[in-house]
């Protein structure tokens, strides 16, 4: 008699790897083959994950249409079985997958739109965190910049692309054909900041300098290293903007030895 684990491993092979024989040996056919019975569960498995991807990537779905999307999703799911039962977290690698998905090779902006949508998805679902109390920050100002790490709100995401993916994303979701037709794919690269504010998730075009500065903050590098990443004149304005919009939530100090390294 198979153990419970034998059965569960066999069903995994059927649903995730399309190898029905091990599970079929344990199943009563009763007028319908074991493979047909397993396919009902596989349909739900693939369908649930496809729906999760469609909810996280609505613009990609609209851009390519349902049939292409479902085909791409099926390929993606074969390579990426979820590790967690929370499907809001499923599909982080979809942009990287699209980058290598041959049928999408003629749509060079598609991975970028997916990358933006994932950043929006993350911003939508992270837990609420209070903005940094400015009174607390005043105590940090007395410390050496080499020893302070400023912490960004977990909703803050940064996306960079060679195409105007934010304009494509907005036009597609608004179903604005006029705006879509006016998009110039060769208009140059965009540096985007995604964050969740009081009114919802915002996608903002920022300068390359602000993007580099915020990237260094996001990597939780010491404040001095963050400041060194951009010209002096720019840094205070960028930092003030992050503070004013509640994008900084905490700071911590590091030991001298860590700062030196």
């Amino acid at each position, binding site marked *: 008699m198979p153990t419970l684990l034998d059965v569960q491993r066999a*069903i*995994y092979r059927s*649903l995730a790897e399309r190898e029905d024989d091990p599970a079929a040996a344990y199943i009563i056919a*009763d007028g319908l083959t074991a493979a047909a019975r397993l396919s*009902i569960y596989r349909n739900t498995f693939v369908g*649930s994950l496809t729906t999760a991807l469609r909810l996280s990537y609505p613009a990609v779905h609209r851009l390519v249409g349902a049939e292409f999307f479902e085909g791409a999703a099926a390929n993606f799911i074969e390579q990426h079985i979820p590790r967690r039962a*929370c*499907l809001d977290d499923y599909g982080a690698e979809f942009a990287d997958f699209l980058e290598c998905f041959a049928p999408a090779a003629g749509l060079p902006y598609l991975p970028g739109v997916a990358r933006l949508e994932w950043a929006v998805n993350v911003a939508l679902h*992270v837990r609420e965190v209070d903005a940094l109390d400015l009174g607390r920050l005043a105590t940090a100002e007395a410390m050496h910049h080499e020893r302070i790490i400023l912490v960004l709100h977990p909703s803050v995401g940064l996306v960079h692309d060679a195409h105007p993916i934010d304009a494509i994303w907005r036009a597609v979701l608004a179903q604005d054909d006029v705006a879509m037709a006016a998009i110039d794919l060769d208009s140059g690269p965009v540096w985007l900041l995604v964050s969740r504010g009081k009114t*919802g998730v915002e996608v903002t075009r920022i300068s390359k300098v602000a993007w580099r500065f915020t990237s260094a903050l996001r990597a939780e590098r010491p404040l001095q290293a963050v400041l060194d990443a951009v010209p002096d004149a720019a840094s205070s304005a960028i930092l003030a903007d992050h503070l004013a919009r509640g994008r900084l939530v905490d700071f911590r100090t590091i030991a001298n030895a860590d700062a030196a390294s």
Partner: protein
Amino acid sequence: MAMRCADDPIPARAGIGLRFQHHQAVLDSRPDVAWLEVHTENYIGGGTSVRYLEAIRPDYPISLHGVGLSLGSAQGLDAAHLDCIKHVVGWVEPALVSEHLSWSTVSGRYLADLLPLPMTEEALYVLCRHVDQFQTCLRRQILIENPSSYLRFRHSTIPEWEFLAAVARRTGCGILCDVNNIYVSACNHGCQPSTYLAALPPASIGEIHLAGHTVRQLDGGRVLRIDDHGSPVVPEVWALYVEALSRFGPVPTLIEWDTNVPALDVLLGEAARADALLEHASVRGRHADAA
């Protein structure tokens, strides 16, 4: 509508599944429905859904219905997922918490479905240990729901209804009796749904689920019923619900609708129909008591 207390029990009336398509409509119209049920896993993170539920929950008792803990996994519960559920239970303060008699995770991979267990003493032992662990973690009773199924294992030795009753007896958990699932599984496997209902201990029934299902025609004239929660409750399931109420008395009853989600009024109409049957069962119970 009066504010409720966090520990208000769910009344023996009809509730509806709150899905994201109806967040704004429920917030705006505060419909006259006795309670709401949400999927626990949709509120593990933060953001819009959580903000809606925070705004809605002061006015309705909430039932948290989990779909991802995988109580039947041979390799144990995911401690991180259990912590997430505990966090959600902490802030929602639900009147009911439920999960399924099924599994969905093996070797650290989540198969995104409520998969059937072989009905064996080994599976019963594993499931009971995990129900104990879940109840100990939350420090409260949970309900376990019978799933719909499309296959049976050759080595199963216990009828599902006896298996479910044994879980309730051994762990002290309650039972979420999904009447539609009983009907679907009974039709798919050639059993009598009344046999299933008769085997369940009435005192353990904490909630009933009602939902729609589809019928797939197979070669040779056979049909397979698929539990997809995407249509109205069928007449045969309403009839089985009446039988369930006659056995169990009035029990909080949920209208579940997860695919092809219709307008809120459609759900409320189904809930009103369940409410009428619950009221009838309640009156019949009072007459029986008086006699």
